[in-house]
């Protein structure tokens, strides 16, 4: 019972945070509603017994990344968008597509739930640090190492794009 109440609480908070992110005109408020979203997703992870993921979610996303976001927003000194944007045909189509996509997802995931199978992912204790460390160092060793190449490339990219360049 408590689990179900918590699930609804976190889901509604999470969705509210995401909606707030999109509809807030003030970038700081938008970023803060993103934090609400991050925290409630961490709550959902906890209720799925993925403790490690929940902690990392809060540490990395709600902590480090959000601080970075806020710094950037404050340094750029963004103003609140004054005019509400017009609702033209392009936006209308995008809105319709978004609605259709949401409906599709709800339909598909409901069909998943109604057939009442336990997802295979829930059958082993994936939430603790030990099984995660174990699989990162065994079956997922290669992808784990290769992610460092993505990060390295991103790092180089940030430097290439951001540094003052004299093209020597």
């Amino acid at each position, binding site marked *: 019972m408590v689990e179900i109440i918590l699930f609804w609480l976190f889901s509604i908070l999470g969705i509210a945070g995401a909606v707030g992110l999109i509809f807030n005109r003030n970038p700081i408020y938008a970023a803060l509603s993103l934090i609400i979203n991050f925290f409630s997703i961490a709550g959902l992870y906890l209720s799925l017994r993925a403790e490690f993921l929940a902690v990392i979610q809060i540490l990395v996303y709600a902590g480090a990344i959000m601080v970075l976001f806020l710094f950037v927003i404050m340094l750029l000194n963004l103003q609140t968008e004054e005019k509400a944007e017009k609702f033209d045909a392009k936006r209308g189509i995008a809105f319709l597509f978004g609605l259709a996509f949401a409906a599709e997802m709800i339909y*598909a995931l409901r069909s998943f739930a109604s057939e009442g199978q336990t*997802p295979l992912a829930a059958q082993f204790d994936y939430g603790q640090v030990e099984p995660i460390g174990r699989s990162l160092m065994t079956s997922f*060793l290669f*992808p784990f190492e*290769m992610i460092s190449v*993505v990060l390295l490339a991103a790092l180089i*990219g940030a430097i290439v794009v951001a540094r003052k360049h004299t093209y020597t």
Partner: protein
Amino acid sequence: MNSFPFSIAELALSSQYVLPLLILLGAGLLLMLLDAFGAAKFLPWVAGAAFLLSAGVAWTQGAPAGRLAFFGMMETGGIAPIVHAFLCLSGLLTLFFLSDYLDRHDRHISDVYALLVFAVLGMSLMANAHDLIMTFIGLETMSMCLYIFAALFKTELKSNEAGLKYFLLGSFASAFLLYGIALIYGITGTTNFSLLASPERIEIIQSQQTVFYVGAGMLLVGLLFKVSAFPFHFWTPDVYEGTPTPLAGFMATGSKMATFVALGTLMHQLDMFQNTKLLSVVGLASLLTMIYGNIVASRQQNIKRMLAYSSIAHSGYVLLGLCASQSGMEAMLFYMFIYTLMNIGAFGMLGMVEHDYPDTELENWRGMGQKAPLFAVAFSLFLFSLAGIPPLAGFMGKYEIFIAVIREGLLLPAIVGILASIVGVYYYLRVIVVMFFSKSGETSALLPSASRIPLAGAAILVVLVLVLGIFPSLILNPITQALSGLSQATAVLP
């Protein structure tokens, strides 16, 4: 899966299987180090040597399909070595044109070589992945490098636009891909290709069709974006226009080849060839891509944009080939190899004169046939090949694709494809007509003032395009051989 004390020998064997990838990884790191120690002028050579070495090791490493490395993460047999060699080749050919282009535009950005090596590494990871996680990581490695290429000339507005557009839309497409992977993992509990094709997983997939279709559809969206297929093509012309020209050629060839191979493997493993619904989605996308790409390309006044739209059209042909199952895979690989040669050639030569004939506007190329006859002839050769005019390699590529499609009984799509490629002939010929049949003025030189390396690269490509048009079996036979191993391995699976 979680057998913990695994043997060191097993790891060593796996590392040996992925040696070509490790060579690229090491070379990328070495390039960064050399750059830091001020050896910038050797970088293209080191990168080239790494590509050659890696391709050579892969080519000699051939093995039957199903030789997996690192707990089933990577496929290292079957077509994997050939695909890896092709991808290295696309990187190598780009190098011929790249440093001269950067020199001419006074942008000595030496980080680009390490990124090029990492991009090829990512492509190979994606194309030869045997696990959806690996596909995603490969795609991200590749895309990250391509985003940077698009934004490389950061003081130019077009480049900024290209970089931002590609980055935002690309991240969006990656998110779709990842969501699709998550849904498929959600119903099957695995991301491994062999496990996904096992009978019990297939049963699960059949009982959870709705979620599976949504997941597979999202996977398709993510991958079709990368090959700029019809509804997801909008970024292509703007991004290619803002990207340094030789790197745009690399984007249009290597990344597409890798994505097509990944797509083909996925379609094999998820049994999409038996699944008419998903197959018809791919087929429809391919038809629309061909028609749209060719028609819009014929209205371009800018050669670079024209080539960008033509690369959309070419994606359409290859996607059509993919619908034709096994023989389609073969035709697809062959076509992408040929396309790599001629497209890197066309973009590379465009880059050679971009400084002297600015903006790549067709108007500025008036009378190129008199000003630089040899150059114009070589460029026309690539255009003829792209159009698919007989004795050239491009014709053989198109022939293989359409024959494979017709053999599969898809007559109507093949006819649409052939009609679309006839429209394509018009805009390639238009460039040639402007170069040769409109008066300009004085003769200046046989060749534009380019250094020897890009000229050598263009010469090699011209020879290859001519030779492969007459002896396609030089490349076709190894591909067929590698693929016949694949069909044996997949025949074991239900």
